[in-house]
């Protein structure tokens, strides 16, 4: 046990368990504030736009999208990869907490897991709609069908299906099992009959027995442990969708680690955005302290360095390979050609601006933290745009080169997923404690004991 006096407090103030319960259940027990309804309305409107775009895609076909013969993967796959990337941070936080015993992740992992679940849901929609006939989506499952066909297990697209569904299911299990004790607490406290019934039902009869806790702790460790490699595998497999093809700009061995770091990077940025909003909205300053935000900023700083290194490596390898197509894609199309604006936005937003976090002043300034976290996600979106479109639009044959621009339907589906995400997160902050109450209690206690020890030591 490290007893460092210089360490920041993870939970501020000497709080009793009762106080912690009261303060962390505020969002569930009080009526939602006005902005909640405003957000919900905006989310619903966005969702309706998404519904319209979905309807257009189904009723008129994918011709309503901006796809062409050359650019067969456009906004749908860009946004799919972008959302999946965001969905990475939740499980990463849970693993920091459960496997690496990083106590600071304890008060963030619930919200981060929620973000993961909704982001992966948003992501999953894109390939589903891209199939053109989503009602036949079950064709991708390996089952003995009437057509006597089996799947091609060598296809990365099948791995992708497997990876994302595994990730979604495991994340939901981690998230849900983690909140069972809190749901039981709410069920005991709430006066609302419907609430009591529902929370009681979902708390699975949890009664706080120490023997249950003992098994529960083991279960969470196992789940965290087996989810840990999943964090790496999901985006690696998404990257393999590209890397096993022969297109310049895609056909590179660096793609899997590059995608993985990008995913962690954008996911942490999104967590930062959300945590800044939540702690302000629900007065969680004592639980999500400057120390937490500072830690996330540190991760972003190093993530940004690795991303920058990956960009440079890609350029270097393209030049070093001596392949004309590679050199064209990287140095002409991306860095200086028709995609240069997007390329430099990507480089500056991802690799340069987050370097601000080397300065303590920037890490302490909430406005800067918030703006940079959003800038990172814009930059990451451009990264996916660059990878997808620049390689496809200008490939081997200049005769097949095209421009790519999304249509209203493309944009509509993207906005729709924002609606889904917003509504999902708002429902989460309305009905589930944002900070895991049962996990914060031991942390607060450890903090108290540490302080006491220091006091005794001083005397």
């Amino acid at each position, binding site marked *: 046990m490290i007893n460092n006096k210089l360490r920041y407090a993870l939970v501020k103030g000497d709080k009793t368990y009762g106080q912690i319960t009261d303060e962390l259940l505020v969002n569930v027990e009080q009526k939602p504030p006005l902005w909640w309804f405003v957000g919900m309305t905006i989310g619903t409107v966005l969702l309706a736009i998404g519904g319209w775009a979905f309807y257009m895609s189904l009723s008129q076909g994918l011709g309503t999208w901006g796809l062409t013969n050359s650019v067969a993967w456009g906004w749908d796959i860009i946004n799919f990869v972008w959302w999946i990337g965001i969905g990475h941070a939740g499980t990463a936080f849970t693993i920091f907490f459960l496997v690496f015993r990083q106590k600071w992740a304890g008060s963030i992992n619930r919200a981060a897991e929620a973000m993961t679940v909704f982001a992966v849901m948003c992501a999953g929609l894109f390939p589903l709609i891209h199939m053109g006939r989503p009602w036949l989506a079950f064709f991708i499952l390996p089952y003995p069908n009437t057509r006597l*066909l089996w799947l091609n297990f060598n296809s990365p697209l099948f791995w992708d299906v497997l990876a994302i569904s595994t990730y979604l299911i495991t994340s939901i299990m981690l998230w849900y099992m983690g909140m069972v004790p809190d749901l039981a607490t709410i069920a005991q406290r709430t006066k609302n009959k419907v609430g009591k019934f529902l929370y009681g039902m979902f708390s*699975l*009869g949890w*009664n706080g*027995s*120490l023997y*249950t*806790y003992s098994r529960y702790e083991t279960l969470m460790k196992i789940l965290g442990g087996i989810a840990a490699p999943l964090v790496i595998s999901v985006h690696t497999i998404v990257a393999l969708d590209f890397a096993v093809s022969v297109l310049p700009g895609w056909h590179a061995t660096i793609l899997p680690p590059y995608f993985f770091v990008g995913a962690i990077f954008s996911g942490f940025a999104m967590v930062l955005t959300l945590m800044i909003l939540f702690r302000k909205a629900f007065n969680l300053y004592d639980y999500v302290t400057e120390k937490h935000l500072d830690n996330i900023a540190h991760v972003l700083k190093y993530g940004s360095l690795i991303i920058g290194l990956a960009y440079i490596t890609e350029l270097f390898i393209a030049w070093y390979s001596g392949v004309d197509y590679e050199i064209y894609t990287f140095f002409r199309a991306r860095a200086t050609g028709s995609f240069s604006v997007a390329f430099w936005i990507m480089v500056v937003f991802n690799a340069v601006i987050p370097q601000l976090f080397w300065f303590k002043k920037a890490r302490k300034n909430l406005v800067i933290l918030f703006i940079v976290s959003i800038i990172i996600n814009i930059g990451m979106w451009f990264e996916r745009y660059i990878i997808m479109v620049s390689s496809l639009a200008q490939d081997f044959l200049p005769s097949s080169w095209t421009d790519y621009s999304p249509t209203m339907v493309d944009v509509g589906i993207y906005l729709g997923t924002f609606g889904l995400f917003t509504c999902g997160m708002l429902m989460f902050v309305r009905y589930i404690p944002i900070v895991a109450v049962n996990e914060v209690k031991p942390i607060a206690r450890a903090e108290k004991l540490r302080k006491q020890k220091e006091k005794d030591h001083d005397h």
Partner: protein
Amino acid sequence: MTTKQIIGVFDDESVLLKATQKLKKNGVNIQGIYGPSADHDLIKKLTRESRLPYLSVVTGVITIILTFAFVYYVSVIDYPLHYGGKPVFSFPPMVVILFLVCILITGAFTTFSFLTSEKMFPGKSADVVDPRALDDRFYLVLDRNFNPDEIVKWLQDSGAEEIIEKENENQA
């Protein structure tokens, strides 16, 4: 049979830990310990280690074997289709599939086993000693049939905040 219980209420884990250890040493039958959270120390000292990890490992191994058999059957025996001259069976893609299926099934099965072993299911009504057991107090539930006066004394000595004596019909 009606169960007679003595319940000690504590507000701190370390006091609870000491009391429980003392009562255990004196041979008192402990029926249950309930609380809002459990720190690692308490779990380690008062409960047996869970055997869930062994189950997970076995599940994982069985899953890997079955998945391998399935994929092999599909791609080599039942439907050996050549894609661009590649071998019908290749190991690298297998690694990805085995890895993912193993995680999925092991995770789901371990969760399911946990719920089964704790007899937890959706809609089960919780046998909570007291609502505060899920908020800020720890409840040490003891068997009253053995020497009640002495138990009460021991509890008082070890710093219990409150002592409840119960003669109820349903077991907590």
